[in-house]
């Protein structure tokens, strides 16, 4: 990455919302997914390409407190299959699958009855998987539900992409010399000001710019 890119990333990292705000966006997506489907839980898994693992990134409902950060292999199990094949999947009667039932019961504390899983695709990249557990359902599944899930997946994928960009910019900033960090802090400080104080801040920066020329 060039010095110019570093500066851009540093300024961007200063202006971008913090990690907590991105995580809040993901949590709100799984909260809404859970509400719309009347589900017991919903979660987003992010692919950590370097480690080749899936990571619980946001959870709504049961298991929410303990699951975030948990990792598992990226190409096995149902979530791994969905990620690798890019195909959404709905499964009922999960308790019939002894291996899944045992593994999930250990992490969730209960065995879900049903699962909807959809890949999170942004352009040509597969970023992760969205899962909805134990939705309220009628007598039989309808394809409209699958379309709704795909719509949600599109929204979650955009949010996940933003989160990853912010993390990369943050990593550049963390590994950069002090002067870049100073620029980023300045950007963040200015961004937090309003009204007259913001105008005064901008005047100060313009004066500084003149001085430094």
């Amino acid at each position: 990455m060039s010095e110019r890119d570093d500066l851009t990333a540093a300024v961007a990292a200063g202006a971008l919302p913090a990690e907590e705000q991105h995580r809040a966006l993901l949590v709100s997506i799984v909260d809404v997914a859970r509400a719309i489907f009347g589900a017991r839980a919903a979660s987003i898994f992010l692919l950590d390409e370097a480690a080749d693992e899936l990571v619980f990134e946001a959870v709504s409902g049961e298991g929410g407190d303990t699951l975030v950060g948990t990792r598992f292999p990226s190409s096995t199990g149902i979530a791994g299959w969905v990620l690798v094949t890019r195909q959404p999947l709905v499964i009922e009667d999960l308790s019939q699958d002894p291996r899944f039932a045992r593994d999930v019961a250990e992490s969730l504390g209960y065995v879900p009855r049903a699962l909807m899983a959809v890949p999170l695709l942004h352009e040509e990249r597969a970023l992760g998987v969205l899962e909805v557990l134990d939705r309220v359902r009628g007598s039989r599944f309808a394809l409209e539900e699958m379309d709704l899930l795909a719509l949600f997946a599109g929204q979650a994928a955009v949010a996940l992409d933003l989160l990853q960009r912010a993390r990369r910019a943050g990593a550049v900033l963390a590994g950069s010399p002090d002067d870049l960090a100073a620029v980023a802090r300045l950007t963040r400080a200015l961004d937090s000001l309003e009204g007259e104080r913001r105008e005064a801040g901008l005047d100060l920066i313009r004066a500084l710019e003149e001085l430094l020329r």
Partner: protein
Amino acid sequence: MSRPEAHEDLPAWSLTSSEAEGIASPAAWPEQVTADWAWGEASGRGVCVCILDSGIEQGHPLVGTVEGAVAVSLGEGDEVVVEDDREGDLCGHGTACAGIIRSLAPECSLLSVRVLGAGFTGSGPALLGGLRWAIEQGVDVVNMSLSTTKRQFAGVLHELADTAYFRRTLLVASAHNMPVESYPWRFSSVISVGSHEDADPYTFFYNPRPPVEFFARGVDVEVAWLGGSSIRSTGNSFATPHIAGICALIRSKHPDLTPFQVKSVLHLTAANVRGAG
């Protein structure tokens, strides 16, 4: 894994007057192609169906005998390695596809090519390597309930799909219901499949508005799963083996048909087409 050899000595690039007789259709086509003509009384005998997926659980009561199972992975130098598979199914999905195909074509032979388990980063090369290996084996039908969004693989996948098409291997692949470009289902040399909500496993529809060409049963399907179990499932990935199974039946009754002809038979026997005749 036998394949018809009848046309191998026929001209490939041009046709002289004296050779024209040689390409007369070996069997008379009926005035109207019906499901009964296409696959009535067929069992899938003599047809090999390859399932490119997560593996197949050996000995599952809904699957029966699996003729062969290999796993595709990447070696130390990132070369594709194909070796006997001793892991079985890493997800359950491959077993589900095998069970659907077995229910439609009870006497076909099944070959499992596991392309999952090599990690996410190795999954693209494993998919390509597995498909190439299956085509080289001369299988009759390949069930691909999977796709890739990586453009870097699209060119090679396209070449492989065309190679299969010219070597009479039918590729049956799941379409996407998501707004992204993915492959290989979009290629015209592939039979692409989406889901309908009807419960009849033999009912399928032709789509006059491609790229998805056919819709088959894909909602609330009872399928084989891990541990000898069965579960209910929904997705285009379960519609695909329905068409793959019907293709196995057609191939078992009419082994000389090319992929183009099989696709034509599917069109003529689709629920929304055959009714018009």
